[in-house]
C-alpha cells in the first residue's frame, strides 16, 4: 500500500540549509497554533495532519512540484524551493519508538487531481516539544534527497 519513499514539498528557501532541510519543514503548525486558542484544526480522531505525496512513480513528484495555490487571486507555484524525498523505513523506525506508537503515523488520502496525496499524522497527545524533536529526527534520518523546483 505504501511505497518506499514519500515527498514533502518545500514552500521556500527558509526551509533549506546547505544540502538539507530545516526541521520546521516537518512541524505541525496547526497543532502549535490550535493549542493557543481553539482546536478547530484537529481531526475528530485527535490527529493533526501535514500533506505529503506518496512516491508511487515520477508522476507523483511532477504533480507536487506543479501544485499551485492562490495568493491574492493569483495562482502561484506552492513549493518554490522544490521537494524533499523521504525514506519511509526510516520514518517507521522513528515512529515505532515507544512514546510515538499510535501517536505518529501516516495515511494515504487521495484528493481531487492528486491520487498520490497523503498525510503525516501527529496526535494531539504529543507535546509540541516532542513534535519538534520528531521533526529534527525526520530531517536528520529520513531525508534522502532534495529535488529543486526546476528539475521537471
Amino acid at each position, binding site marked *: 500500500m505504501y511505497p518506499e519513499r514519500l515527498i514533502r514539498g518545500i514552500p521556500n528557501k*527558509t*526551509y533549506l*540549509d*546547505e544540502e*538539507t532541510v*530545516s*526541521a*520546521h519543514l516537518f*512541524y505541525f*503548525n496547526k497543532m*502549535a*497554533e490550535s493549542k*493557543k486558542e481553539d482546536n478547530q484544526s484537529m481531526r475528530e480522531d485527535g490527529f493533526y495532519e501535514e500533506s505529503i505525496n506518496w512516491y508511487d512513480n515520477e508522476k507523483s513528484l511532477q504533480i507536487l512540484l506543479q501544485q499551485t495555490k492562490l495568493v491574492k487571486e493569483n495562482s502561484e507555484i506552492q513549493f518554490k524551493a522544490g521537494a524533499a524525498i523521504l525514506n519511509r523505513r526510516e520514518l517507521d523506525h522513528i515512529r515505532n*519508538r515507544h512514546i510515538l506508537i499510535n501517536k505518529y503515523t501516516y495515511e494515504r488520502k487521495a484528493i481531487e487531481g492528486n491520487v498520490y496525496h497523503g498525510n503525516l499524522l501527529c496526535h494531539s497527545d504529543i507535546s*509540541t*516539544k*516532542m513534535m*519538534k*524533536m520528531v521533526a*529534527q*529526527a525526520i*530531517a*536528520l*534520518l529520513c531525508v534522502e534527497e532534495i529535488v529543486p523546483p526546476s528539475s521537471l
Partner: protein
Amino acid sequence: MSTRDYFFNIIQDTSGNISSDDSNYSSAEDKFVQYNPTSGSQGYTSPVINLSVSKIVQNLLNEFQNLAESDQKTLFLNIFLTLGKILTKYYSQSFEISHLPPLHVVIADDGSILIEWIFTDFRVAFSIETNLSESSWYLVTNKKLEEIAKSGYISNDNLEGLIDEIVHFVIENT
C-alpha cells in the same frame, strides 16, 4: 572586557545604534575579525578566535537585528551570547572549531525562533517559543552515534551549563 560586553559591542556597532570608529568595515564578519582583542588588556588572544566564532554565529547576529523587542528576543540574545562565550572558551583551550558549520536561524510559521546546528550524523537545535516557558533544546543523532534523542526545556537561567555540554558534544563528534 567581558564576553558579554564584547558581543554587545558587535551587536551595537552593526545595528548602527552607537557611533563607531570602524564604520568603513564592509561587514559584520569583518568587524569580528578586525575587532582585535589583543589591543585590550583582557580577554582574547587572537583575531582567529573572532573569525572562527563569528562564522558560526553570524546568522544569529543577522537575525537578532531583525527581531522586535520581546521576551523571545531576550532569550535569543542570551543563547547567542552564551554560544559565543562557550565557543571562545573551547577555542582558547586549543579545541579546533574552525571546521564547524554556521548555525541556521529561521522564524517558523508558528512564531517560534528555530536555531539549528546541522551535521552529517547529528543535529542540535533550540526552539524559542512564543510561550517562552515551552522553549526547548534538542539533540538527535543517527545510528553511528547510537541514535540519541534528547530534549529539554530552556530558560535564561540554565543556558551556560547546557550549551557547554552541547558544544563539547559537537566538538567531540565532528
